[in-house]
């Protein structure tokens, strides 16, 4: 098999398997009603029909890909490492965003919850997490971590925070709606 055809084949195979799992396992186990139901002495469409049709559409697409393979772009190992790198960065920055405020506030008497709408407490998580996210992403893409990028990240995060927080009383910055 040519490399292009092979990549397309595995792609189609993956989605065929996914569709089969959907139709025969996930949908039957995870829906409240069947394909059709008898309600009030009449048949109505049940909750399983829609997802089954969606899965069938995926399966049809997969079969068409097998029949007519096209350009054969495939995920490479580098793509996977890239995704892992991004994921790690998001995990770190979102955890910082979520917990930096509460950790800082744990040194106060009241804890974070009563302070969650009070500056500067409500900005702590967003600014730290946002700075790391922006600086880190820029660094990742340009292959070098420069302090300058984090400064830009901080300024940008601050600008975004002020953009949402200053004019609008009812908008809540991350993570303060979860607390």
């Amino acid at each position, binding site marked *: 098999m040519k490399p292009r055809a092979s990549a397309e084949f595995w792609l189609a195979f993956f989605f065929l398997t996914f569709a089969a799992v959907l139709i025969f396992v996930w949908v039957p186990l995870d829906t*409240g009603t069947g394909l059709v139901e008898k309600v009030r002495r009449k048949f109505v469409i049940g909750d399983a029909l829609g997802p089954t049709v969606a899965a069938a559409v995926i399966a049809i697409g997969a079969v068409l890909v097998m029949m007519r393979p096209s350009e054969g772009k495939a995920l490479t190992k580098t793509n996977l490492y890239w995704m892992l790198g991004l994921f790690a960065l998001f995990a770190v920055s979102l955890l910082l965003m979520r917990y930096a405020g509460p950790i800082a506030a744990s040194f106060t008497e009241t804890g974070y919850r009563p302070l969650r709408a009070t500056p500067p407490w409500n900005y702590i998580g967003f600014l730290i997490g946002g700075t790391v996210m922006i600086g880190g992403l820029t660094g990742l*893409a340009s292959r070098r971590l420069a302090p300058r990028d984090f400064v830009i990240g901080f300024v940008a995060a601050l600008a975004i925070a002020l953009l949402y927080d200053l004019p609008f009383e009812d908008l809540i910055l991350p993570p303060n709606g979860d607390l």
Partner: protein
Amino acid sequence: MGVWDHVVAGFLAVLQSDPVLGIPIVLLMVLFGFLLGITVGATPGLAGPMAMAISLPILISIFGYSADALLPVLGFLIGIMKGATIGGAVPAILFNTPGTPDAFMTTLDGYPMAQKGEARRALRIAHFSSASGDTFSDIVLVVCAPFLAILVERYLDLPEKTALLILSLAFIASVIGNSVGKGIISMGLGLLAAMIATGEDFYPRLTLNQPALAEGIPIAAAILGVLILGEVFKALEDIYRGEAQAKPPEQTKVQGGAKSKDLRRLIPTIGRSAIIGTCIGALPGVGSTLAATLGYTSAKRRHTNRPDANSPAFGEGAPEGIAATEAANSSVSGANLIPVLSLGIPGNAAAVFLILAMDSIGGFNPGPSVFQLGGGINEGALNPEMVMAFGIFTTMFIANGLNWTIGGIFMRWVGVMTRIPKARLLPIVLLLTLTAIYVQETSMVAVWITLFFGFLGYVMRRIGMSPLPFVIAFILGGNLEATARQAFAATGADPFFLFNSPIAFVFMALAIGVVAFSLRKPVP
């Protein structure tokens, strides 16, 4: 109350909106949106839909959820949509980098002209063609959308409406991208995502017992994730791999205006391209990039057959090349709203965000009922949705007016945006997007869901699967299932309801036909 009363009321709704600094707020919002759109369009790596997505939560916080909010919010978004199309030509001409994908063909003749010191003339031609195409397309929209809607409402019953949705989805999946199979997989995934937690039964289906999913996937999270985050992830990786490190283009002198004789000569080219763009725009899913390509190639063929002594060849700085491209890609935007307003079916990413705005604010449900005279209340009163539709048309023409008057001047100012490096800009766009999601959903889970869809969008781009069928199917999925349920119940549980009426049967046959026909496309 006749159609004309609605036209007038819609017009007045715009002009009599609350004044700010003496200017009606809707007018002001169109202006801001338009200027932002040009700026964003001129910035490589940013596109109109991104700006629309990020503005939406801010706009909703300003204007709230009342019916009064619709026109200012939609006016702003329409301003962005229109501004971005002309903005995309700026870096294409000045720096040989298209600001938006549909401006790629503009670089072919625009940059050579700029190199010859005719940048100002090229920009003027781009602006004139773009504004003409856009205006033409809007006129077609205003004339066609109401009639189409009335036809649909008069002749289509529930089964036919179901079949029409299926036909639209099949069409979109088949024409977007290079592979029909992948388009259909993308569509299936979108339908699947739309099914999560949305069933009729009280059991939250397909949620794997995760309470976080019990309300379904937040629409904005899925759409922004796939369309914006996916693109950002991919663009950043391209930078990482050094693929997008094009050298900063050298500054060219902006001089040499266009003579009006120049523009007059181009009118036939613009006219042909505008018709091509409008026809393509009216079909859901085809998009402005294809329109630009078709407009350009058709003009090129004509030009080669009948060479003009006064004009250089295509690819060497022919004004016709710029005119054909810009007229075609700009005339998509108006016609694209024909299926949106008359059927509720979005045809491209910009339309997706307009529908998202209408959905979030409420009070305006795009679809055939919009153009019902009497609007379901009674014969004596105006149909508020139809008034709103004409208000939207009015904002489009205001945007066109701005385009004709100040668009050209503003275009020349925003060339500087090209100098912002993507590696700096895109991470900021990403944080802005995530924050926009958070203020709407107020939960970190929603942010994670958005990132999940971002990775999905990234993978789709890497395996050559267009994300647009996913997004459109995700938006229409709930509607499709609901209409099918109603049609089935209304026909007394007839299992063949999709094939029993001649119109529904024709739609279904066309749906299968369009997939089969697209399969014959040559493999690139």
